[in-house]
């Protein structure tokens, strides 16, 4: 009976599942964070106003070209192929085998970075140009404008898309099994290869993947609510007791 097998697999192999899930989460989380940082950096660089002439113009043109090339290339090729090329390419070029876990993080980071760069660009475009102008008018330079005014709004706006990317990464790390990273899918393959119970093993892992992605969804929703802050504010002078302040700030 399948259900007995499922229970047996969970009881017998849970340490392997747990280790696999851990590796998957580590790669997906670090990959998404680095990818988001690459995306934000790329967003800052690609929105620098290009001067009409001078050496800075040429430099910015080159930077923009390189960024576009990076984005188009990594968005336009499958991650499973990128994994093979980078992992075996590095082995050929430098004569040493990368640690598979490091390799996995690198691959997921640069792949996510390419997507995040476009997501951040969209986020920057969606911020009212008046925000940028007001910051400029106050005397902020491009970096100050981005760090203090534009990007905080961009980050809030792209949080759902970033969460999406994180969830995609949790699932897509499965392809990294091709370079022998012992993430969740790789572990499940080993388990199924041991007991020849393919349906039951992969049914279990299916549930594990879903629990991971759904937990991430819930956490992100909580963060979004936290970032939006309280709906109410206190008008100074109108408050009289601590009770009132509490009532007004909590909105109860």
């Amino acid at each position: 009976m399948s259900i007995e097998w499922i229970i047996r697999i969970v009881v017998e192999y849970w340490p392997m599942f747990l280790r696999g899930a851990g590796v998957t989460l580590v790669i997906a989380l670090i990959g998404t964070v680095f990818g988001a940082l690459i995306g934000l950096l790329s967003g800052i660089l690609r929105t620098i106003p290009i001067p009409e002439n001078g050496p800075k113009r040429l430099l910015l043109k080159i930077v923009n070209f390189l960024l576009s090339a990076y984005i188009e290339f990594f968005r336009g090729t499958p991650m499973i192929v990128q994994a093979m090329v980078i992992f075996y390419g590095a082995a050929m070029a430098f004569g040493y085998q990368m640690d598979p876990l490091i390799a996995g993080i690198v691959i997921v980071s640069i792949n996510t970075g390419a997507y995040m760069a476009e997501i951040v660009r969209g986020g920057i475009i969606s911020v009212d140009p008046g925000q940028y102008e007001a910051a400029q008018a106050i005397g902020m330079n491009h970096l100050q404008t981005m760090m203090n005014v534009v990007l905080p709004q961009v980050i809030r706006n792209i949080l759902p898309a970033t969460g999406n990317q994180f969830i995609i990464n949790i699932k897509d790390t499965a392809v990294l099994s091709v370079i022998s990273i012992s993430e969740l899918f790789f572990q499940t393959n080993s388990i199924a290869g041991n007991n020849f119970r393919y349906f039951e093993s992969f049914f279990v892992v299916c549930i594990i993947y879903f629990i991971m992605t759904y937990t991430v969804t819930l956490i992100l929703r909580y963060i979004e609510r936290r970032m939006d802050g309280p709906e109410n504010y206190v008008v100074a002078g109108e408050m009289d007791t601590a009770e009132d302040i509490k009532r007004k700030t909590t909105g109860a």
Partner: protein
Amino acid sequence: MAERRVGKVNTVVDIQGLSKSFGSHEVLKDINFSVNKGEVVTIIGSSGSGKSTLLRCVNLLEKPSGGQIIYNGENILDDKHNVHQYRKNLGMVFQSFNLFNNHNVLGNCVVGQVKVLKRSKEEAEKIAKKYLRVVGMEAYVEAKPRQLSGGQKQRVAIARALSMEPDVMLFDEPTSALDPEMVGEVLKVMKELAGTGLTMLIVTHEMEFAREVSDRVVFMDKGVIAEEGTPEQLFNNPKMERTKAFLQRTRN
């Protein structure tokens, strides 16, 4: 105003031969005028006359196509001049408020002081609260821009600009985006400021207000300064036909 006041000690900004084109469309043609310390200058004229573009050229939100802007005896359109260093000396109030959405009322007035003027947070908050009191918004320090009415937003925007303690305040149609009942509260604040000896350059459609607060009124038409003079001269005895026609239209 036939005589130029080049190099005079009391000149804050001196504009010479300024022009601005968008493509082949010439929006400003050979503009010459200056703003003196403590003076309140209003720019009036119909929509499309170039008055907002002129104001935006003064703090380089629009890059002039030709001419000079003399500030502290130097032409700030020279490449060697740092635009951001120059802008912190000019306060700007926009038609659409452009409060920083990611900051609360106090944060809006503090961030520029801390990041651009490098003031300490404590000092910046003290100064911010001082100017929020001037505009009557000191009770709302915790509120987010989205929680305020248009008139309140604009008063905070004025406090934000004042907190930078600029040499001159630029107002770009500050009441045009407001409901009629809120226009009054913003104009009242501006009248009070004009009374304190603050140097102000105001683009406005509020003729009564212009007549009341201005030391000098500039009438723009089709990208040139058609006429300028004291409010009495310009409103009561306009010399030019087009000034008369414009004033006639606004009275109806």
